[in-house]
């Protein structure tokens, strides 16, 4: 005995971890625990009822309405003009939504919400339940293809028109302008007499069009950078329009993101009728220019709140707008320059020639779904300006208040007509019951997996098994906490599979270490020495083994999308947290208990 004790004194560094390591781990664990706890409470399906500005709606009225139709509401909270009705199940929430949508549409905006069931103070700490993916929450996911070719086509057409107009004005004959493809024009014929004039014009479009000249055949190609500019503008504008429209649907957590070059992914959690969503996405917006006239029959309010009467017949409609971009004039004042196509340009020229000094309004019309499920137009004036001079097919709107306003106006003008055609190429609708089933299935698999592991560890490693179980528990909590903290991360069904899988794989870390300890004990080392050896020698193996899985998970994350990324995310987080818990966390427990234990020939 004295021998072993001396050894223990001689090597005081063995199985000692500095205080800061304890501190850091405990702080990290507690912080992640705080983040993870609200997820265990889950969230409660709810409906937000935002009463419209000049309307009144009492909470009692809502309660009465819900009572008469026997939709069991759980609770109704009222704060700062917004009511929040909570329900027991998503099915009830959906029933109530359908009901309130038809009954209260005039007085209030109804939004689908999920309300954290955890005590209020978690929210003040910034801890929310983990966000659930569509496959768990239920909802609609769509992938839209944006036909950018059609947008290029319009630009090319407009330029062709412009050149034709130019040739006509200059009385140049025997020169033809025709469209070869959506991004290419050909100018052919007797070019010699027109060469100077054409070159001068094309020089001003150097940035947009690349010109290849040969005898009597000039080819104009839309430059790569211009294509990108056009594509980016069209995508941005489409996404903005879709966001606005989906906002009208009352879906709080909806996401509209660009995917790849020409796709847009829309996720609508809590929407269970894809038809409604599709109608809104497919709805069109348009823009028209109307003359302001005291005798006009179209009465509207402008952006400053003044009544304006307009002529019903528009001067031109938005389909003639090819492009609208914000910019500044020589004085640095904001403006929006608008380009019209050929027919639109000549109409506008004719009109403005007769009406210099008169006011003209830009009216934006959006077709939206009303409570009967029909598309109805909603009009608003986005700009009212005085015509200063005769307008050619490219003109400017000035007199704007700010660059911000110019940007928004350009966006709105583009949305009137430029909206690239979209096509739904992928659609996934997951019913609410399936979402709940999926959660149940995932959680029961996780629970059984955990229980099985715990039982095995207790039987196989006895005392050390308890440490491993604590490590597994900590691992799960940290994994969940990290998932909540990671911005944009959602828990999907494959994500739960990732959780379950990491439980199985996290045990591996413990097994590697404990088996090495056993080996050393069998060779006759004392427990303390064996522990030290076990942890040190297993480290590289654990590291190497986990790195390869990490690499394939990273590939999956980088290349996959949606649910696959959910799986990759939990797998990556799980590998990281299992290494931290398995190597570091369990040691924090083992050291104080067995770190000085110099018994030999004992079994673990």
């Amino acid at each position: 005995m004295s021998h072993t004790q001396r050894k223990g004194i001689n090597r005081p560094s063995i199985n000692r971890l500095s205080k800061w390591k304890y501190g850091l781990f405990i702080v990290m664990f507690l912080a992640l625990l705080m983040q993870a706890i609200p997820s265990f409470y889950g969230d409660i399906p709810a409906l937000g009822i935002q009463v419209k500005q000049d309307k009144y709606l009492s909470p009692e009225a809502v309660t009465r309405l819900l009572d008469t139709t026997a939709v069991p509401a759980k609770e109704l909270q009222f704060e700062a003009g917004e009511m929040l009705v909570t329900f027991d199940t998503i099915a009830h929430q959906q029933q109530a939504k359908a009901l309130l949508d038809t009954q209260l549409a005039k007085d209030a905006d109804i939004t689908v919400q999920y309300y954290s069931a955890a005590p209020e103070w978690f929210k003040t700490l910034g801890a929310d339940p983990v966000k659930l993916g569509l496959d768990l929450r239920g909802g609609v996911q769509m992938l839209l293809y944006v036909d950018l070719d059609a947008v290029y086509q319009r630009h090319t057409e407009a330029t062709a028109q412009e050149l034709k107009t130019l040739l006509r004005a200059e009385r140049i004959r025997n020169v033809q302008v025709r469209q070869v493809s959506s991004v290419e024009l050909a100018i052919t014929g007797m070019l010699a007499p027109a060469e100077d004039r054409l070159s001068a014009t094309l020089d001003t479009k150097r940035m947009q069009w690349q010109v290849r000249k040969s005898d009597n055949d000039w080819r104009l190609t839309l430059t790569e950078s211009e294509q990108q500019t056009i594509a980016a503008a069209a995508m941005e504008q489409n996404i903005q329009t879709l966001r606005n429209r989906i906002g009208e649907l009352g879906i709080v957590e909806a996401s509209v993101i660009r995917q790849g070059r020409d796709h847009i992914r829309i996720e609508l959690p809590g929407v269970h009728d894809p038809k409604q969503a599709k109608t809104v996405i497919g709805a069109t917006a348009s823009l028209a220019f109307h003359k302001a006239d005291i005798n006009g029959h179209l009465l509207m309010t402008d952006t400053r709140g003044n009544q304006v009467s307009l002529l019903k017949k528009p001067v031109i409609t938005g389909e003639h707008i090819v492009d609208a971009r914000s910019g500044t004039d020589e004085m640095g004042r904001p403006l929006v320059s608008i380009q019209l196509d050929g027919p639109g340009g000549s109409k506008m020229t004719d009109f403005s020639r007769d009406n210099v000094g008169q006011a003209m309004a830009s009216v934006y019309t959006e077709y939206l779904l009303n409570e009967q499920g029909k598309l109805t137009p909603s009009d608003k004036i986005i700009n009212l300006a005085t015509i200063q001079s005769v307008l050619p097919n490219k003109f400017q709107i000035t007199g704007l208040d700010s660059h911000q306003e110019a940007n928004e106006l350009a966006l709105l003008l583009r949305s009137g007509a430029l909206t690239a055609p979209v096509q739904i190429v992928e659609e996934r609708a997951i019913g609410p019951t399936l979402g709940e089933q999926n959660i149940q299935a995932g959680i029961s698999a996780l629970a059984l997996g955990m229980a099985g592991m715990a039982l095995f560890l207790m039987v196989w490693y006895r005392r050390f098994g308890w440490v491993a179980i604590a490590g597994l528990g900590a691992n799960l909590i940290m994994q969940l906490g990290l998932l909540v903290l990671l911005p944009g991360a959602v828990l999907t069904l494959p994500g739960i599979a990732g959780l379950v899988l990491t439980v199985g794989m996290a045990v591996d870390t413990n097994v590697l270490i404990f088996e090495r300890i056993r080996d050393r004990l069998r060779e006759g080392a004392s427990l303390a020495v064996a522990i030290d050896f076990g942890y040190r020698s297993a480290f590289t193996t654990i590291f190497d083994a986990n790195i390869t899985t990490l690499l394939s998970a990273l590939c999956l994350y980088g290349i996959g999308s949606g649910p696959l990324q959910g799986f990759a995310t939990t797998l990556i987080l799980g590998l990281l947290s299992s290494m931290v818990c398995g190597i570091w966390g369990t040691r924090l427990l083992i050291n104080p208990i067995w770190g000085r234990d110099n018994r030999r020939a004992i079994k673990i």
Partner: protein
Amino acid sequence: MTDFTLTRVRYLGMAASIVMMLLSLGFIAAYGLQLSIDFTGGLLLDISIPTLAGASELNALLAPVLPSMSQLTETSSTGQWQLLLPAGQEMINPQLLISQINDQLISHGGIHLSDGATLLQSTAIGPQVGAALYEQGGLALLAASLSIMCYLAVRFEWRLSVAAMASLVHDAVITLGLLALLQVRIDLNVLAGLLAVIGYSLNDSIVIADRLRDVLKAKPNLGIHECTDMAVKATFSRTLITAGTTLFTIGCLLLLGGEALYGFAFTMFVGVLVGTWSSITIASTTQELLGLTPADYQPNQQLMDERP
């Protein structure tokens, strides 16, 4: 007298592995991989029909309302059915179809219905999207294999890296072969499973390779076969335990995870089983065949001598 039983077992196992690989390639060639609409495009409806009727009975009953070229198939969960419409067919309105199915079921009242049919999930994917996903999936597999190969090349002796890669290919081929034989539909989740299998397969090979490295350094006088046997024996309990725990958790998913995770869990289950097997039969024999010896892991003697 050295006991070479384990060596013999390993080489027998390798022969068996090669046979299984050839068989798997045969299955893939003969039956083909059953790609899901994730990759081919099309429309897939998951419908809950609370009925006791069998597949043929139900299909006969519903034939008038079902779109041509489509059939209801039963899933592993009772009462849940799938309807698949390949890409290029005329698309239908899922909600409308469900109400037609209900009408048909009620008018032919022979089958007891408590709730009627309900639509659980609908997935519609355009053929271009499917093709793009297919490319992405292949790219992910390729990128994963390449990055792992790079990592191995840096961390291990080249013969050990090649051995680990050989066992990876072995695992992927046999898993795919079984998926082809059992006609499991390859969807995105199966792809995720395959990638996880690739990661896991190496996990086992690396643990043995790591131990072999230790043995080769410690016992320069032993033959390579003995060293490998020692490494395999030393890690054997760990190999079994880890395979056991992982298989158990995946088994939980297979059992309780429901229809949505079936493909994933099945792929992982097969992959882990094959991966464990190959770490002993492929990974630890290939390096011997490539001529790895303890000498490759000895510190360079000449350099040591030249030290002052």
